[in-house]
């Protein structure tokens, strides 16, 4: 036997050991083994090595591997253009964009996430996301026309794939699923009542499926909102089913009013916002859709029947149902987590369309929490780069605040006035409070305290920095110089008490403030086009000026909806793990009362103090 052949046979020893040789070759190896001691020894040692390797302990997969994979896959599902599912979903988005329900709900989510003024909501981690690509009106119009013809969205910002691909085919398949789903949904409407026994959402939360977990989170958000908004009652069911062999997940709620309906819808949007840390309409729509059945006379129009339009705010409102009539004296009551009290006041100051009174009720032992929330909220927000980016000035507590005897703190808010953009005056009227961070907060049980604090305020205003809240407004929404009265404007929006308390000048400021609010909204939205739907709102016609009562009702409805959205959102955060800023879920009751509307003032009336 040649040396080379022997060497080859030796090289086949491992394969012989593993039983991987054909019979002829195996016979040759066995012949070698029968004659060669070296071959037998080598084979024995190879077997020893192989068996030793087989006996090595296996490395157990760390417990964090599967969750890490899941998180990464979910992240890519949500945000990565390369994800096959995202391509599917984004193609689906192109088809369901026609649903005004989705659009409006996402608008609400975006509104809450970034604030109409562009101020980020702390702790949500949303405002840090870059704005989506701006889409021109022409692009949108062309887009809608294309959608109407069934064309897929052409890539914008690299988000939507235009090429016909398996994703496109899957989208068509999803469409095929959606139709029988709609039919099944209609059939399910025969159920007269949907009692919710609880627990379904927890099962979904623990499920490995991202879809089911999302459903569970949505469900939990709805339940939380139920607890957070006492006036609401929502039936809920979490179930899974198969429609045409396609697995789906349904979260069913039964609101009893248009407002609850909208709240539930918005809560879904908010929950998805929270889940995906995204606020854009596209992101919202990629993972959920809504439909409704039944009608209470308000929700008479199917949501999907409302086509998207650049001036569709009215239609969208109609499809969602206007809130019940609300007038002066009506209240909306909310329970917010303690750390959010200051934020709620801030939001009210920014967005309340009419003068309101805010009453914060709390247990005596919670006073420190409330005080801390009110004070540190502004202080902290002013120290963050984001806050500085939005032009927030430093806010400091004006005066030490004593604990109210009855645990009730009232705060009256008046619509933002352009006059408030003025720098602080050298002196303030006697009736001004001394709490620039809180506005005209008054102790309900200590009317005499107002006068004492007002005097202190005079001293402080004469020597201290300009009222910080006013500076914030000034930097965000600068107003024309002619809209100043030159006197007492330092904290006009904050110190104003009941309507008409400041005479014609105050009324003029309020009137001008309404204009400013609209201008401010338009400017803010157009200046930072977060979402196309937001611009729809901006282009909505103003409420009729000759119907103040109706305007008040609508305005209060908006206010109430906003408060409900906020509370739902905050309790959502408070109930979710890892929401550091919502770690204290101590409930604080807040009542927002609509005050009588101001007397109409002719817009042509010259503003007092105008140069």
């Amino acid at each position, binding site marked *: 036997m040649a040396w080379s052949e022997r060497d080859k046979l030796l090289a086949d020893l491992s394969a012989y050991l593993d039983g991987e040789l054909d019979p002829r070759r195996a016979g040759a190896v066995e012949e070698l083994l029968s004659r060669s001691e070296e071959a037998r020894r080598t084979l024995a040692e190879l077997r020893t090595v192989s068996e030793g*390797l087989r006996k090595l302990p296996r490395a157990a997969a760390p417990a964090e591997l599967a969750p890490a994979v899941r998180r990464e896959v979910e992240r890519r599902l949500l945000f990565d253009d390369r994800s096959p599912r995202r391509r599917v979903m984004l193609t689906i988005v192109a088809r369901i964009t026609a649903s005004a329900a989705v659009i409006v709900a996402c608008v609400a989510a975006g509104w809450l996430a970034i604030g109409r003024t562009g101020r980020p909501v702390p702790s949500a981690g949303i405002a840090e996301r870059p704005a989506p690509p701006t889409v021109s009106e022409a692009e949108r119009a062309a887009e809608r026309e294309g959608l109407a013809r069934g064309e897929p969205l052409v890539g914008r910002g690299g988000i939507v794939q235009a090429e016909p691909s398996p994703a496109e085919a899957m989208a068509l398949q999803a469409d095929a699923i959606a139709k029988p789903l709609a039919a099944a949904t209609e059939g399910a409407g025969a159920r007269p*009542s949907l009692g919710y026994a609880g627990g379904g959402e927890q099962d979904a939360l623990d499920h490995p499926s991202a879809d089911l977990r999302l459903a569970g989170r949505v469900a939990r958000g709805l339940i939380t909102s139920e607890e957070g908004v006492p006036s609401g009652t929502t039936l809920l069911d979490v179930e899974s089913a198969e429609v045409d062999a396609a697995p789906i997940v349904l979260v069913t709620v039964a609101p009893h009013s248009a407002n609850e309906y909208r709240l539930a819808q918005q809560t879904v949007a908010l929950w998805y916002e929270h889940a995906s840390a995204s606020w854009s309409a596209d992101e919202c729509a990629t993972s959920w859709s809504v439909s409704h059945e039944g009608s209470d006379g308000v929700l008479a129009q199917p949501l999907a029947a409302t086509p998207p339009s650049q001036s569709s705010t009215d239609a969208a409102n109609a499809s969602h149902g206007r809130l019940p009539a609300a007038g002066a004296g009506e209240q909306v009551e909310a329970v917010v987590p303690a750390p959010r009290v200051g934020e709620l006041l801030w939001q009210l100051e920014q967005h309340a369309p009419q003068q309101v009174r805010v009453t914060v009720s709390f247990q005596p032992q919670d006073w420190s929490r409330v005080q801390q929330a009110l004070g540190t909220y502004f202080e902290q927000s002013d120290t963050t780069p984001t806050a500085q980016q939005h032009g927030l000035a430093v806010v400091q507590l004006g005066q030490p605040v004593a604990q109210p005897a009855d645990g009730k703190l009232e705060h009256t808010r008046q619509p933002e006035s352009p006059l408030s953009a003025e720098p602080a005056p050298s002196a303030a009227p006697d009736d001004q409070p001394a709490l620039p961070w809180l506005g005209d907060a008054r102790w309900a049980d200590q009317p005499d305290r107002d006068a004492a604090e007002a005097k202190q305020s005079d001293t402080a205003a004469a020597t201290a920095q300009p009222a910080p809240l006013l500076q914030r407004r000034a930097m965000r929404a600068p107003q024309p110089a002619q809209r100043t009265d030159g006197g007492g404007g330092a904290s006009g929006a904050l110190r104003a008490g009941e309507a008409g308390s400041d005479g014609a000048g105050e009324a003029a400021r309020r009137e001008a403030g309404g204009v400013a609010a609209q201008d401010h909204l338009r400017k803010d939205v157009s200046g930072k086009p977060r979402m196309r739907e937001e611009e729809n709102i901006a282009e909505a016609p103003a409420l009729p000026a000759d119907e103040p009562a109706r305007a008040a009702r609508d305005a209060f409805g908006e206010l109430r909806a906003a408060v409900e959205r906020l509370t739902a959102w905050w309790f959502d955060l408070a109930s979710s793990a890892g929401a550091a800023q919502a770690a204290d879920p101590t409930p604080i009751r807040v009542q927002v009362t609509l005050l009588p509307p101001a007397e109409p003032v002719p817009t042509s009336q010259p503003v007092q103090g105008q140069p």
Partner: protein
Amino acid sequence: MFVVAGREPAAVLRVQTNVGTAVNRSARDTLDDAELVRRAQRADGAAFAALVARYQERVFNVCSRMCRHQADALDLAQAAFVRAFEALPRFEARANFFTWLFRIVVNLALSQRRRGAVRREVSLEALDGEADRLRPSPERRWHDPARDVENRELGERLEAALASLDEEFRIAVVLKDIEELDYATIAEILDVPVGTVKSRIHRGRMLLREQLAAEGLLHGLV
């Protein structure tokens, strides 16, 4: 949590998350790879999660042999699964998912090694203390109490010797002797001819044999 009695809902809002799954965990466990892959290709996250659960032990075990450091192995295993998820639409149903997945693992390991992203350990001393990360699985536990200590030391040395092999030999030996795959499957995973697999396995074992023999440990393994 709350009950509404005697009150008809005025309207029902149905919130449908997009395509999810209706099958429960136990039902998924009974599905074969092909069915799970088919569902995962339809963007069923639960099906893919089931695949992850099914193969995470084997994938991580291979990764640990390739990386030595647990953190690197974890990253590699995670990257492999994510890469598999991304590539699922291109996966052909007639292929074997496990083989395909292991091919991804190997390719990622090799590419990371080339980029120097994974630390390499060749020193026996450096591996002291690393063995704690290797927890014996029930089926692989060394049952002889009298030899546990000795076998553990031998196992550590064998691990170290294995880690010192060139990667092409090491992965072939790992797939054969630890994952117990046949040559054809290994060839498919490594995308090389069967003859190459045979050669690499033999050379890898011979190198291990030489290292252990030099330390006088060869006979202690049996």
